[in-house]
């Protein structure tokens, strides 16, 4: 599987890493991370490892701390305690820009797009950022052609070619979420964080998104961590599942183990079914 090769590549690319006991070289590692809001512990002493090439789901009831967990990884919020390590570097106090440069890119539970611009223009900002030319006050022909080609490529990957010139704010909700993923993809993520990518979608939209996430993982070689409430999707595509409940990790393992876990069944799946 490509996951295994990606994982090996990561391991050889970073030989100075301390090998984890029997486990993969930790691509993303959270060490005893907590985040308090006043007296509320939204994330409570969470330790977490993710290998390169993984497709991992984070599940848990409303208010479990899933989005907060993403905020700590992506740098929107600093943790109250603990450390966040990505690809061998302690990024706990590093800026959002630094994390993105390292390859951590996210989407949001509430779609964040450039609403008055077209699909093409939304993705263009990401492509120009990825090429490091944001600050250029003019653009030459060659560069423009290269940028446009890359945009078309990304639009094709997410199957929005026929809507490339449409204003994103006027698209259906499902398409808007796909645009957000395409924009995230445009900056070249190594770890993609998707916060409820199928939230509020109809059946066919959901299917399209699930297929997209799967292809990003297998064809584009992106490691994906996604929050999801739909258990069919979670158990359908995730290679590994982390269950959060009231800020704590309740369970963590492959789908078979999670579905068999009595604590998870009691605390979460039982309610959801």
């Amino acid at each position, binding site marked *: 599987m490509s996951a295994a090769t990606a994982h090996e590549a990561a391991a050889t690319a970073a030989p100075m890493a301390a090998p984890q006991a029997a486990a993969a070289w930790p691509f993303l590692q959270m060490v005893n991370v907590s985040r308090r809001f006043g007296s509320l512990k939204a994330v409570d002493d969470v330790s977490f490892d993710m290998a390169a090439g993984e497709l991992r789901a984070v599940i848990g009831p409303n208010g479990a701390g899933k989005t907060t967990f993403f905020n700590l990884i*992506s740098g*929107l919020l600093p943790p109250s305690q603990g450390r966040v390590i990505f690809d061998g570097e302690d990024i706990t106090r590093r*800026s*959002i*820009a630094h*994390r*993105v*440069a390292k390859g951590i*890119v*996210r989407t*949001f539970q509430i779609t*964040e*797009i*450039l*609403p*008055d*611009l*077209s699909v093409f*223009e939304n993705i*263009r*900002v*990401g492509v*120009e*950022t990825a090429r490091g*030319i*944001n*600050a*250029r*006050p*003019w*653009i030459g022909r060659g560069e423009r052609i290269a940028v446009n080609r890359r945009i078309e490529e990304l639009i094709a990957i997410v199957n929005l070619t026929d809507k490339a010139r449409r*204003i994103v704010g006027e698209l259906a909700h499902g398409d808007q979420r796909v645009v*957000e993923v395409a*924009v*995230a993809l*445009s*900056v070249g993520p190594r770890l993609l964080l998707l916060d409820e990518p199928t939230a509020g979608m109809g059946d066919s939209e959901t299917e399209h998104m699930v297929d997209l996430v799967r292809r990003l993982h297998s064809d584009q070689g992106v490691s994906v961590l996604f929050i999801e409430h739909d258990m069919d999707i979670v158990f359908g595509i995730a290679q590994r599942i982390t269950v959060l409940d009231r800020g704590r990790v309740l369970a963590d393992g492959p789908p078979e183990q999670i579905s068999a876990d009595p604590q998870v069944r009691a605390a979460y799946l039982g309610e959801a079914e």
Partner: protein
Amino acid sequence: MTRAATIAAMWIALIALPWWLPLIGGYTALGSKVLIYAIATMGLNLVLGFTGGLSFGQAAYFGLGGYGAGMTLKYLVPSTPLAILIGTLVGGLAATILGPLVMRRRGIYFAMITIAIGQLFYFVIVRWNEVTGGEDGLAGFGRQDIHLGNVVIPLTDVNFYYLVLLCFTVAVAVMWTLLQSPLGHTWVAIRENRRRLQFLGVRPERYVWASFAIAGFITAFAGTLNALLFNFTSPQDLHWILSGDFVIMIVLGGMRSFFGPLIGVIIFVVAQDYLSSLTDNWMTFIGLIFVLIVLLFPRGVFGIFDRRAKIA
């Protein structure tokens, strides 16, 4: 009409202006004034309409440009091009130096700091009256004939209009190029969704700074021409009332469109010129027009031609 045809018609009308404007009761200097304000407001609109920063003190850079040009002519050298250059640098550098104070603020705080900075310059100009003429304004300078090799071009009203039109063309080319560039795309993205941009690894502040600084240079450029138009400049050219008028002009014409501010300026300046000869309460009528346009065309008059920001 297609967009290209509209724009072609606009240029023809501008080039022919000294012939047709007097026929409808205008005068060439009014055309110059419209183009000067168009440069200023289109420059401001880089911040306001395209970057989404409520720059409400832009007249400061307009006025600094005017004082820079006037004082160059009065105290330094009798050269129109140098007056324009120095005035543009004075106003533009002021905006560049103050940009860091502005770039982190958003929404109403952006508006407040830009107004405050604007008023600061206003008071400096008023207080420094031995040099600036204080409340009475700066007079005693005049635009000089332009020497191109052996050719001397006297800056009559009509020739000056063509100088302004040339400056307008240059400014339009610069702004158009900017808005087509990655920098311009980044500005629009800041306006649209700052958070999205941050999570693509971009730090918006420095781009807001660039936008504010460049707008400062362009507005100051317009300010120098304004001083040359009247051979006079006064503290009113830096006052927040003029800043507010700039914003009104932009909103009238359409802040999402490139040429929108030009339309707004035409409506405003023409209304001001005609109405003020009829009534002292002309501002009331401007207000009325403003309210009507905002109600009828939320995207400004230019919004009729242009359903959304084409330059994005």
